[in-house]
């Protein structure tokens, strides 16, 4: 539900959401901000060797998250894009993550923890798995980038 209007946020799709409608209706303003104005939505060329792609799925809610980074020759992340199908928290988590990694080095980016994302967005406990998905996605993107670089050296 990456690009639908904000009005659908409260009827969001995340499977875990429904038993917790009250919680869903009271998203933290930061989550709503990232959902209404998602940063860095889109795609990068996955065949570009300076691009790392992470694609992960959550069994617990059926969400899918694609997160991509573009790294310059000094190992600095100069661009990041995402495409997420899931609830507001999953979209906000990926949006926040793309913002956070920009300007960081690959090594710095590896240190991002889901707890940091959850804290920044004030995610409730039932939504922690959304921030874990974002951490997994950035890790997968970084690992994809490194594998590509190694292949290039070889």
């Amino acid at each position, binding site marked *: *539900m*990456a*690009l*639908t209007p904000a009005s659908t946020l409260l*009827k969001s*799709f995340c*499977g875990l959401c429904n038993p917790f409608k009250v919680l869903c209706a009271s998203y933290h303003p930061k989550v709503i901000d990232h959902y209404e104005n998602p940063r860095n939505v889109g795609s990068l060329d996955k065949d570009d060797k300076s691009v790392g792609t992470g*694609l*992960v*799925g*959550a*069994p*617990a*809610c*059926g969400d*899918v998250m*694609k997160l991509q980074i573009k790294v310059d020759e000094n190992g600095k992340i100069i661009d990041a894009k995402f*495409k997420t*199908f899931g609830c507001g928290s999953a979209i906000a988590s990926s949006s926040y993550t793309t913002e956070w990694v920009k300007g960081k080095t690959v090594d710095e980016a590896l240190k991002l923890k889901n707890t940091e994302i959850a804290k920044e967005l004030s995610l409730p406990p039932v939504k922690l*798995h959304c921030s*874990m*998905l974002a951490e*997994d996605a950035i890790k*997968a993107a970084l690992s994809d980038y490194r594998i590509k670089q190694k292949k290039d050296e070889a």
Partner: protein
Amino acid sequence: MTYFELFDIEPHMDLDLDALKVKFLALQQQYHPDNNQNDVEQAVEKSSQINQAYETLKHIDSRAAYLLKLAGQDSGLEQSIHDFEFLQSALELREQLDEADNSEQFTALRTEVTQWIDGLIREFHIDYTEQDWSEARDTVRKLRFFRHVLLDIDKAEDKLFDDEQFDAFDDDF
């Protein structure tokens, strides 16, 4: 006592869901606190166990997860799915669901997901028989994933139908 033993069935993926329901209702009747006035506490406990067992065995993904649990191989089932090809198809499916705006499209999506699920069930059979636990866990994650996709298809269709009704209502005024 395992959930399978509780329902007096063989621990297996293939279950007759109708028979399971009949058995469930009979057990609920048998352990209903009203029928067990001499030990209400135990009846309540048994009753809740029966509910839990039925919920677990009823759904294909939780039944498979339970079989893994019985084999002591169910750790990490909550972990993210990393199968790139699978996720690319899932992403496409999600995109189609986002754009779906008529019943035929919803039906087509449902059929596609059901076919995926059938394939995964066959895979689980093989993984389980060959005791390839890591593959079996991966298959269970995907089965669980698809249960939620199916629920989302239902929700999206309901929402569309509700909106249409609302529009029709709007036109009257």
